């Protein structure tokens, strides 16, 4: 199957799963007793967070392969993963804030997970700024790979330090994380379908972005060889 065919099928599967997830979230799943209706955002929030983590891990893996093998494919993959991951990471922060306002009484608290997610968002925001400034040069790809690897190395130590920071001086509001008590099997089913929907959505967007970047790379190579041919024709 061609790349285009794969992307079409991925899109259709994502559409079907997303419709099923929406139905389950808004109609099928029972309302959580303590938190009420706002708890339903959890079925968006958690899959987005997982997908964002996977995307950022992918940036680092692609970075290692790019530095090792020097093939442009790896950089296109890493760049696409960083952009896609950034979208989902933003969604995590936004949906989290919407949930936190009625439950915790504040849009934002410096809870360890929130802080870690914000740092992640800043890290990969910096990565995207760097890529935008470097333009599409071989140098930009190399710098992107280095920063992607260093950022991923930073993540575990960010998690540890933020957790220590918060356990030594615990905030009042952070004792209960939402969604830990999924007693009802319908809740588990909804979460699983939602996870599947967001995973395919991520893969689909990633494939689209990756294909665009591949095209961009090929176009750049063509333009360069055209310029070379023209220069040679003028010389002779």
């Amino acid at each position, binding site marked *: 199957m061609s790349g285009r065919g794969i992307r079409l099928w991925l899109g259709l599967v994502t559409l079907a799963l997303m419709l099923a997830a929406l139905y389950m979230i808004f109609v099928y799943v029972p309302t959580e007793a303590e938190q009420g209706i706002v708890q339903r955002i959890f079925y968006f929030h958690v899959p987005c967070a997982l997908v964002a983590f996977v995307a950022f891990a992918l940036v680092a893996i692609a970075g290692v392969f790019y530095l090792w093998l020097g093939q442009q494919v790896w950089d296109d993959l890493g760049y696409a993963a960083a952009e896609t991951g950034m979208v989902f990471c933003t969604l995590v922060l936004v949906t989290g804030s919407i949930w936190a306002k009625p439950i915790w009484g504040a849009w934002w608290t410096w809870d360890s997970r929130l802080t870690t997610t914000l740092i992640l968002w800043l890290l990969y925001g910096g*990565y995207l700024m*760097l890529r935008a*400034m470097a333009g599409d040069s071989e140098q930009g790809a*190399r710098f992107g790979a280095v920063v992607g690897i*260093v950022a991923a*190395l*930073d993540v575990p*130590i960010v998690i540890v*330090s933020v957790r*220590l920071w918060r356990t030594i001086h615990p905030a009042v509001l952070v004792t209960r994380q939402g969604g830990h008590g999924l007693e009802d099997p319908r809740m588990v089913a909804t979460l699983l379908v939602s996870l599947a929907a967001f995973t395919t959505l991520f893969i689909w967007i990633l494939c689209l972005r990756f294909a665009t970047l591949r095209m961009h790379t090929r176009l750049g190579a063509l333009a360069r060889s055209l310029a070379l041919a023209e220069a040679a024709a003028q010389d002779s």
Partner: protein
Amino acid sequence: MASFAARSFVAVLRKDLLLEVRGGQSTVALGALSLLVLVVLVFAFNPAGGERGAAAAAGALWVALVFSGMLGATRAVSGESENGCIRALLMSPLDRAALYAAKLAAAFIFMAVAEAASIILMVLFFNLEFDLRVMRLAPAVMLGALGFAALATLLAGISSRLRGGDLVLPLLAVPMFVPALIAGVKASAAALAGAPLGEFAVWLKVLVAFDVLFVAAGYLLFEYVAGEE
């Protein structure tokens, strides 16, 4: 042949230190910047001394460290490209990792001098006492300076080669430095408050882990940053 790497490290470091001693202004600029940051923070927080004053002082010290670190690493790395010296360094048979180590050492030395000065200034501005508690700041601040120098030297290698790159360095370095910043501020506040050593040691461990990770990462990855062209 380990001696070749060691000799090139010493040669580059010696060059940087000589430049500094014979009228370079890095340390002076770093110290002045730290002074300004502390003054600004005194105006911003109007500290009253005592327990809260000590916590504010610890925070101010680390803000000064981040700012002076950015300047220090930029000067150590981009100073080379001003007269094309970086090209000569890259053309020489010098090992890239040794070059990184030398640049890191230079940035660390400049920062360490500036930090020592800002610890003294902090005690004066925030009405603290020169005693054992202030001495206990030294390991935390030096570990923080080493970590920031390691991170910023690697990133300055990137930012110095991009147009408009001066913006990139803080955008990348500050979020990456967050773990060391948390640990450093906490360790310093614990030291100044005279907290038991155990509380202080937890944060020192985080700082050591950060330093090991970023010195190793910079040492291995600098090769790709200071590539050809």
